[in-house]
């Protein structure tokens, strides 16, 4: 038996820093078959337990091995409505792959690449479901509103429509996908893939309504008045956090959300063919070390910039996926670790010219389990900079609960839910980053899935 784990080929770093095409090239057929053969087909598969949406991993891998790609994708879709996305952005190394029995020998099955292979190469995925298409008017069943078309909302909407509900999915932006559209860059998750998955969700019969901001266009009360029997809120964590240091509101300082939205959603890298601009100098500092920070840094590298990532802890504590850190290093990202920004210094034109920082050292672990950074006295120094991108995390957007005082929230701004994902308003459910704070795509999908079941139970018991 072939024991070597198949690794996906990538665009070489010196090439990919000049374009926005996908970095990972995915498996060839040969690789996919070789990797599928390595799966031990465990009777009691640990990988499935590691998957937040409980995909029958050995079964779909066996179907790839048997060259039944379409069937393999159907098997995945029994549990996961967005496989082409998950195959790309799930942290498999912390979920299914870490649980794989072969990871003990350091050669876990490359489950993510196989999932991506199945979804990319079973190109008849849409035609399968064309038969099932139904418009909202056809269905006699109860109406359910899903708010937010990111991973949680898309998953909940797809599962609910499969259960026979008439589902309207509301999105405030002009395109569906939420963070998949505005946040994650093209080179990590091509928008063609996102819109392909969105089309699939539509083909199931979900009525996607863009340009509707719940909390403003309609309140939750309005939705109940319109006849929706239940509402699922999956609006994510979209409120950018700032450092609260002097100079931060100067022009030339972007939140990660603004920078990424301009680039990913509004295609500012194609300016002036795309009309939304990005104004950026040569020396870019990105503050933060999560996946979002790395996305910003790697976008800036592709715009031809000299990019430094500033983080107050050390590399070990970086929350980003290891693969992305490695990719960024290969692309030439510089690191300024154990560094805390103190002030953005502005030149006479009121544009950033330098960032004053302090050096840090690691103290005792804090509540997150990571060692707390402590400032070293009299260690201040300056980093020259033209633009700063602040990527230190997002909090839930308060828009919905500001318009709905009955919706109880936690001090950190997340919406309170019970064990069945129900909020303090009967019939209103919530899941994903809006209840947990910023987390991964797949955990939001897991929440969407479980919440869909809870909505189903609620409607059945409240006829």
């Amino acid at each position: 038996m072939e024991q070597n784990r198949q690794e996906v080929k990538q665009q070489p770093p010196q090439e990919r820093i000049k374009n926005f095409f996908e970095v990972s090239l995915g498996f060839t057929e040969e690789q996919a078959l070789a990797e599928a053969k390595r799966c031990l087909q465990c009777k009691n598969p640990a990988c499935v337990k590691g998957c937040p949406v409980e995909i029958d991993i050995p079964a779909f891998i066996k179907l790839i091995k048997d060259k039944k790609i379409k069937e393999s994708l159907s098997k995945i879709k029994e549990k996961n409505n967005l496989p082409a996305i998950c195959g790309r952005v799930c942290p498999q190394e912390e979920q299914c792959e870490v649980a794989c029995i072969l990871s003990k020998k350091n050669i876990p099955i490359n489950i993510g690449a196989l999932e991506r292979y199945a979804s990319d190469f079973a190109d008849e995925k849409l035609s399968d479901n064309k038969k099932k298409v139904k418009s909202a008017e056809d269905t006699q069943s109860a109406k359910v509103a899903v708010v937010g078309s990111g991973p949680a909302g898309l998953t909940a909407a797809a599962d609910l429509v499969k259960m026979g509900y008439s589902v309207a999915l509301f999105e405030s932006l002009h395109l569906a996908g939420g963070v998949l559209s505005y946040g994650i860059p093209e080179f990590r998750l091509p928008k063609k893939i996102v819109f392909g998955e969105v089309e699939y969700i539509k083909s199931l019969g979900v009525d996607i309504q863009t340009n509707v901001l719940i909390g403003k266009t309609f309140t939750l009360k309005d939705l109940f008045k319109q006849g929706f029997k239940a509402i699922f809120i999956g609006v994510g964590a979209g409120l950018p956090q700032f450092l609260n240091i002097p100079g931060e509101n100067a022009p030339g300082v972007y939140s990660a959300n603004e920078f990424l939205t301009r680039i990913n959603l509004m295609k500012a890298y194609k300016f002036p063919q795309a009309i939304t601009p990005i104004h950026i100098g040569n020396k870019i500092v990105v503050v933060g070390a999560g996946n979002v920070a790395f996305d910003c840094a790697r976008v800036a590298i592709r715009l031809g910039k000299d990019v430094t990532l500033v983080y107050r802890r050390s590399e070990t504590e970086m929350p980003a996926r290891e693969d992305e850190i490695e990719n960024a290093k290969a692309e030439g990202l510089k690191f300024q670790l154990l560094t805390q920004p103190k002030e953005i210094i502005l030149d006479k034109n009121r544009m950033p010219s330098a960032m004053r920082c302090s050096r840090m050292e690691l103290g005792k672990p804090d509540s997150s389990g990571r060692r707390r950074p402590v400032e070293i006295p009299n260690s201040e120094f300056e980093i020259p900079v033209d633009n700063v991108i602040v990527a230190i995390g997002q909090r839930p957007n308060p828009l919905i609960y500001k318009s709905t005082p009955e919706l109880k929230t936690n001090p950190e701004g997340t919406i309170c839910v019970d064990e069945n994902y129900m909020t303090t308003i009967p019939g209103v459910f919530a899941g994903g980053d809006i209840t947990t704070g910023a987390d991964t795509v797949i955990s939001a999908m897991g929440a969407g899935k479980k919440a869909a079941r809870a909505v189903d139970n609620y409607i059945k018991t409240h006829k």
Partner: protein
Amino acid sequence: MYRIIKKEILADSVKRIIVEAPLVSVNAKAGQFVVVMIEESGERIPLTLADTDKSKGLISLIFQEVGFTTKKLGLLNEGDTLFAVLGPLGKPTHSEKVGTVICIGGGVGIAEVYPVSRAFKEAGNHVIGIIGARSKELLILEEEMKKVCEELFVTTDDGSYGRKGFVTDVLKEQLDKIANAKDTNNCLVYAIGPVPMMARVADVTRPYNVKTVVSLNPIMVDATGMCGSCRVTVAGETKFGCVDGPEFDAHQVDFKELTERLSFFKQQEQECLNKNCPRK
């Protein structure tokens, strides 16, 4: 959806379009705005709701052609459709009864102050309107404003119509009157227009200790509180123009920072105009 059913030229480079946007019209109130996209590759621009007709599902937008997108918007005709209209956005005007409300509109800001003036009048206030433009050709909505104001003053910078000078000249006189009557506690000043005008209004009203509200127009992308492009410093705190505003206490706004942030993309805006000359 989002079909333009009527288009009018109100003044040199100032146009009004009436757009079918039934969902937006349902909950729209004075002081709120929408985000408009002409096409998918276009940019998202905020435009104040000049008027709404809930029964017909229509909204009225008034804009001045200044950049690429507004120029292109001005080239659209009746029957054309917009790619996206999102709203109503921002907090509505808090139009309670205070006594006397001085409503100031400068340039295309008159379009924005009109629904606000009407809302204050409907709340039972004595509304004094002061509207100004650079010259007669740029003055809009004088007739509409007359209907909702007990008194209306018009100024032009060049003296081609109304009184020569600035809206703040009239404002100062009105405030003197109100101060003489010891009525400043029952007075509110509300101003929309170019940032220098709003900053001047704030400076003029400050010594009178009259509550002053301005409606800000920072650069926005999503306009739902997600990107932070529209952040403004108010009373030393960072606020988002799109969700915390657009109205703020004029005496607390950092107008200098707002001006700097508004001019950040000037070079790109010019480049876009040069390369994508908007012609049909």
